């Protein structure tokens, strides 16, 4: 997969987004060991220091944790991941309704359209 970065935004924030989606979608599961900083940096083709900064931020948010000398793991707290998933889902839903509102459709109509989509 090719990762693209917008030079107008801090790279570590964009990495943080990619990582959060990995966690929400279960690419890395609760309690699973994560690849090393260097492996991540190679995959994303970014500077290892920038990758480290993004991972440190995830750790700050308790979404991952470091086991001394052993590497980094995804949190075992499933609630936390679900909460994050919830936040993303709500944001996506909101933006859908906003878009529909712009073309003159209310909530009820908008939901009808959703039901019509496979």
């Amino acid at each position, binding site marked *: 997969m090719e990762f693209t970065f917008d*030079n*107008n935004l801090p*790279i570590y924030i964009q990495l943080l987004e990619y990582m959060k989606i990995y966690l929400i979608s279960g690419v890395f599961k609760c309690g699973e060991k994560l690849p090393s900083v260097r492996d991540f*940096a*190679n995959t994303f*083709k970014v*500077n290892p220091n*920038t990758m480290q*900064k993004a991972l440190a931020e995830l750790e700050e948010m308790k979404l991952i944790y470091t086991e001394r000398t052993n590497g980094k793991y995804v949190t075992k707290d499933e609630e936390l991941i679900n909460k994050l998933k919830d936040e993303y889902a709500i944001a996506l839903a909101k933006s859908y309704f906003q878009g529909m509102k712009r073309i003159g459709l209310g909530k009820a109509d908008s939901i009808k359209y959703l039901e019509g989509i496979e």
Partner: protein
Amino acid sequence: MELVEIKHLSKSFDNKEILKDVNISISSGKIVGLLGKNGAGKTTIIKLINDLLTPTSGEILIKGKKVGVESKKIISYLPERTYLNKQMKVSEVISYFKDFYDDFDDNKALKLLEALDLSVDQKLAKMSKGMQEKVQLVLVMSRNADLYILDEPLGGVDPATRDYILDTILSNFNEDASVIISTHLISDIERILDEVIFIDRGQVILQSDADTLRNKEKASIDEIFRRMFRC
């Protein structure tokens, strides 16, 4: 102790001041962009760090020691123009580097060249410009140096080669070393930089962490640079 410490560095040629009171400090484990327009003084700074020029005043310390024979052993330098004899085959250049530098890892060089699908029996003169640049970069990055200095490594190469060069820099630099990359092609390179140093008319205008600067100015490094130095 900083890896590179440049203090009050000035350089004049024929009474013309090329560098004016330059102060820079670079710690280990960083990829630093030395950014400026053509003629801003980037190459002069690089030549001074490599002890190829003598400062008019000020000093440059590498790991706390003045530049000289010792610092050359720990700096791997890719000059703007090639100094290799183009009549040499790649295999000859490799043994030349091996003789010359104690820290040259020929196995690493061979592995990287193999990934380029390049025969070591080929003469440099028979290769395209882009290919020659890749070979030189491979040689420079195959040393286990403390500091890599790459002067305009992207000059005149196609986008695919450019990506190859950036990836090679990223995957071959170790956390204890630093890389200084000089360029005026900022947008091509900014995603891999930890820090940026803006040079204009022989002076350091700004030194900052790249992401901090993007965050503060809400723009890309390229955009910030253009705003500062409209031409």
